[in-house]
């Protein structure tokens, strides 16, 4: 039995989603991206710094996340995997796919960018993967790299 399935068993959930292999320390940011604030009804467990600080895990009960909503997670945790759990078993498993373009998720880090005004310009970015994940603002061209979490809307 692999390490991963052992860990999934630690606190097994009956139905829902387990996000595994989150970059260590990023679990709370993942929850923010998913809009899970604690005000909603889901039962959520967060395990941080598992396996000697190598990863975080998030488990959300009774909610199956759809692939498109989870792909934004790739911005801060490109190696995360999504496990859909039905009746205690992994029914589906996929890796997050870095989107090529995002809108309305991150704001531009350039304070003088037109998207950081009252103008109707929604912050949009072209995404590429160089050394890390790079977001290039489609309006001003500014590139955000390692501080993406700081600019989440």
């Amino acid at each position, binding site marked *: 039995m692999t390490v991963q399935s052992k860990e999934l068993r630690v606190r097994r959930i009956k139905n829902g989603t387990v996000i595994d292999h989150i970059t260590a320390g990023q679990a709370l940011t993942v929850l923010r991206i998913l809009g899970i604030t604690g005000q909603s009804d889901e039962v959520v467990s967060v395990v941080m710094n598992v396996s000697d600080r190598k990863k975080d895990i998030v488990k959300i009960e009774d909610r199956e996340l759809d692939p498109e909503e989870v792909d934004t997670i790739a911005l801060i945790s490109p190696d995360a995997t999504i496990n859909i759990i039905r009746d205690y078993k992994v029914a589906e498993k996929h890796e997050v796919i870095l989107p090529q373009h995002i809108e309305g998720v991150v704001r531009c880090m350039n304070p003088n960018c*037109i998207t950081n005004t009252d*103008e*109707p*310009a929604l912050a949009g970015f072209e995404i590429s993967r160089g050394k890390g994940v790079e977001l290039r603002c*489609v*309006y*001003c061209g*500014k590139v955000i790299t390692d501080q993406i979490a700081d600019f989440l809307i």
Partner: protein
Amino acid sequence: MMRHVISIKDFSRDTIDGILDRAAELESIASGGSSNILSGRILATLFYEPSTRTRLSFDSAMKRLGGNVIDFGSIEVSSIAKGENLADTISVLSGYADAIVLRHPREGAARMASEFSSVPVINAGDGAGQHPTQTLLDLYTIRKESKLNGVKIALVGDLKYGRTVHSLAHALSMYNSEMYLVSPEQLKMPDSIKDDLTKSGTKIIETTNIDDAIGVVDVLYLTRIQKERFPDPAEYQMVAGSYKVTKDTLKEVKDDLIIMHPLPRVNEIDSDVDSTRHAVYFRQSFYGVPVRMAILSMVMA
């Protein structure tokens, strides 16, 4: 067909060459001629910050083509002052004109404007962002007065904040150029731009000493170094002084070296250089007219 002119990065080398060819055809009209190529057409200029030269250069270009110009700045200053947003202003203005020239202090303003405009938008500068017609007139000058493909050029001065040199460097990377990046330590070209240049196969040589470049290049492109960039005025004086070009500096340069400057100059070039065969900066400024004529005629064709 071109629609908007927002960033030089939107253009392929073919498109740029096409604009420069068209500018060459129109140059004789630009210098004292007239035509009816755009007669009956209306260009609107919308400047949220003053740049009289750029505005007048567009004005002149449009009039040489037989078209009319309305200046939104002077007829409708009130609505801007009342706080109408740019998107609304553009939506209204595109009902009055066949193309809009926009200058705005925010980066990305022209891109957004193009999304709200029913007519072509030409970016005449968006904050520290893009100013594509400046880049095109620089390319035109190099092509006309020197050689564009394979040019050896020194970009001198503030390479950190200078949008003009950033855009020019990007454009020249499509022309097999070799670049000397000459700047004080604290005003070096940003790494992201150097990476892009290197990836494109451009050979770059970085130095703080203008003497390393001046004897070997075809083009010396000088830019202003602003006082505000230096906390210590004495340091500014020293640095700015070390990049000043005088007749003396030019003793051991190539015969056909050309010296360019986006103007206005402060004290980067001594006035005794003006009468040398190397000085092309005033012609460079004139070339803005045929280049803008080319762009106007192409977007309103």
